[in-house]
């Protein structure tokens, strides 16, 4: 019997040992497995960037080429009798506009990832993704590269939209990989983290958008480059970057930060008028290298090109765009006291874009409602003084220049003779190819 009980005791110990071992292993496994965090993913079709590394991209030789057709005209700068027309992401077309009825295409300057241009004396300034390039235009028939100032802009400077599918989102954007030179569509799986889905920060400028905002500078209202004295002002997101342009290679001298999302620049009366999505900012340029905020005229969230004529500022607000606007208006602002701008009157419009002014004549591009020409001498009755209405064009921006109206539209660049406001006549059309 004793033998039997000892045997049973031994058996009992063995069972206890094994049970303890199994329980320990089981507990360990449970703790290990439950230490795993929940994981959420989403799979979707997306636009994925195609990159070119910075070295290759900057190593490309830029030579003035024979004329090519314009597919998508963008910002325009007028210098004497020459038109410099930026074609987004592709380069700059140069026209001799000595005879507006017959502009002559002189050639093409291929600059990748460009959106904006400016001209000062005999220097052409062209942005190119993160850099700004300068060119000698003293001989417009043979423009020569001068200098590249690198890393002027943040990495999220506008990207090419080549191959971009607007029905799909964009993802996998990593500026460290280089310049985005195009897009392709792929199925993408991304991990999702609590608190929202964070999209890569970038600014997509595509052909459509450029067409919708294609600006005409030198009196144009939608430019993001402006020159005053020896300073080049450039806006990017919520900062005004000031460059000294005394030399061939520009030199960044200052960054002026704001809380607004900046859109357009206009220099007048030794002040910088900045159109933003939430209002118009006025900066004094007493110290040109350090713009000093004087005042702000706030308005409802919208895109707002702005121009200034003497003591009046004209602002257009429109909806249906990235500025989340909900109104379509022309606002006349009194800026006699630059420290205290105030609204004089607001006029309802269809879908106002750019605008220009010559003395008391206001040229307003009203989107699908075409070009409207007003006598604006009476601030309170501008809508009652419509001089002309070209409703058969889709107008985006305009610059009146020596009685020649240069108009950026869906079809291309129109030029009108407005020396007789009652008989504005078409001079030419630089049509899109």
């Amino acid at each position, binding site marked *: 019997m004793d033998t039997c009980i000892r045997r049973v005791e031994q058996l*009992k110990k063995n069972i206890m040992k094994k049970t303890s071992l199994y329980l320990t292993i089981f507990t360990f496994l449970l703790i290990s497995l439950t230490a795993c965090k929940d994981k959420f993913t989403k799979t979707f*079709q997306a636009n994925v960037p195609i990159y070119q590394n910075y070295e290759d991209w900057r190593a490309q030789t830029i030579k003035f080429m024979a004329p090519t057709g314009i597919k998508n005209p963008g910002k325009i700068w007028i210098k004497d009798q020459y038109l410099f027309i930026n074609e987004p992401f592709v380069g700059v077309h140069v026209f001799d506009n000595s005879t507006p009825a017959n502009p002559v295409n002189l050639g093409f300057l291929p600059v990748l990832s460009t959106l904006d241009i400016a001209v000062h004396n005999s220097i052409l300034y062209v942005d190119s993704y993160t850099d700004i390039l300068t060119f000698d235009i003293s001989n417009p028939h043979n423009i020569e590269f001068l200098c590249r100032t690198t890393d002027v802009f943040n990495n999220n400077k506008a990207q090419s939209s080549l191959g971009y599918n607007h029905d799909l989102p964009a993802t996998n954007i990593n500026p460290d990989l280089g310049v985005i030179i195009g897009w392709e569509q792929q199925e993408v799986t991304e991990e999702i983290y609590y608190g929202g889905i964070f999209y890569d920060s970038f600014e997509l400028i595509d052909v459509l958008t450029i067409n919708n905002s294609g600006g005409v500078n030198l009196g144009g209202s939608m430019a993001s480059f402006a020159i005053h004295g020896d300073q080049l002002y450039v806006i990017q997101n919520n900062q005004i970057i000031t460059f000294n342009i005394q030399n061939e290679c520009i030199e960044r001298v200052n960054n002026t930060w704001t809380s607004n999302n900046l859109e357009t620049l206009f220099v007048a009366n030794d002040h910088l008028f900045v159109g933003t999505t939430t209002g118009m900012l006025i900066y004094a340029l007493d110290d040109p290298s350090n713009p000093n905020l004087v005042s702000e005229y706030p308005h409802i969230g919208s895109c707002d090109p702005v121009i200034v004529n003497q003591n009046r500022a004209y602002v257009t607000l429109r909806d249906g765009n990235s500025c989340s606007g909900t109104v379509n208006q022309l606002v006349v602002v009194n800026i006699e006291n630059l420290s205290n701008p105030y609204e004089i009157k607001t006029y309802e419009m269809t879908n106002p874009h750019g605008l220009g002014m010559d003395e008391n004549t206001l040229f307003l591009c009203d989107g699908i409602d075409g070009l409207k020409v007003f006598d604006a001498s009476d601030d309170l009755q501008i809508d009652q003084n419509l001089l002309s209405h070209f409703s058969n064009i889709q107008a985006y921006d305009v610059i009146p220049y020596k009685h020649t109206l240069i108009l950026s539209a869906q079809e291309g660049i129109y030029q009108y003779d407005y020396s007789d406001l009652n008989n504005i006549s078409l001079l030419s059309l630089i049509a899109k190819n």
Partner: protein
Amino acid sequence: MKKSLLLIALFFAVLTSEAQINNEQVILKNGTQYQGVISEIIPDSIVVIKLVDGRIMTINYDQILRIKNQNEKILSPTENNYYVKSTLGLMMGQGQREIQKNFLFETTGGYQYKQWQMGAGSGVHVLYGTMYLPAIAEVSYSFGDKITQPYITLQGGGVFNLSYNKNNTNFWNHQGYKNGKFIGSNFGLRHYVSNNLALVFEAGYRFYHLQGKLIETYYPPNLDILYYPAEYNADLHRFSLKFGLEF
């Protein structure tokens, strides 16, 4: 395995015989049953039992199927049966922001064959505050046949979102997950309070894979808001604690 079980049975028989003078029942493989007090066990050799009528009988070890203590309420592994089990509990897991503690209720039923149970059932699984209807398949194996017996369970199946909204656009309210799969295992203890009723406790791990589709909102720079379809997947890890009854 059979030998081990018999040894365990003998072990408990001796333990209980030491604590109290109770009758045991020795069941032979040929169906013969003897009732009395076991006085000696020599494993792999003989069992000596003093029968209730006073006779002492020596039985060859090889002839014995099992030994039962009269006070034990045993669901015999040799007795095939149907079972129904209902459990209520809590699932815990490491969410992305905080520990997730979710409610769990399950009822399964099936057939018991010896120490194996195979069944199916349903209930309610709550994940991130969203109720899912599970379709459960399970297999379990019991160790031993005493009043309190350990067992392991393998469970798996599908889950269906009771709050599914095909037009849902908010990922984080979890209404966009249509269905999913889960698999897990439990370690359990079953304690019989009568011949037909047992209390059960289970602790285990389970893995969920949920799937769904949402209309996602995208705010493209400089362009109008874009709505696009996306397929969502969630992999959830849960530690579960359950209590319940088994009939």
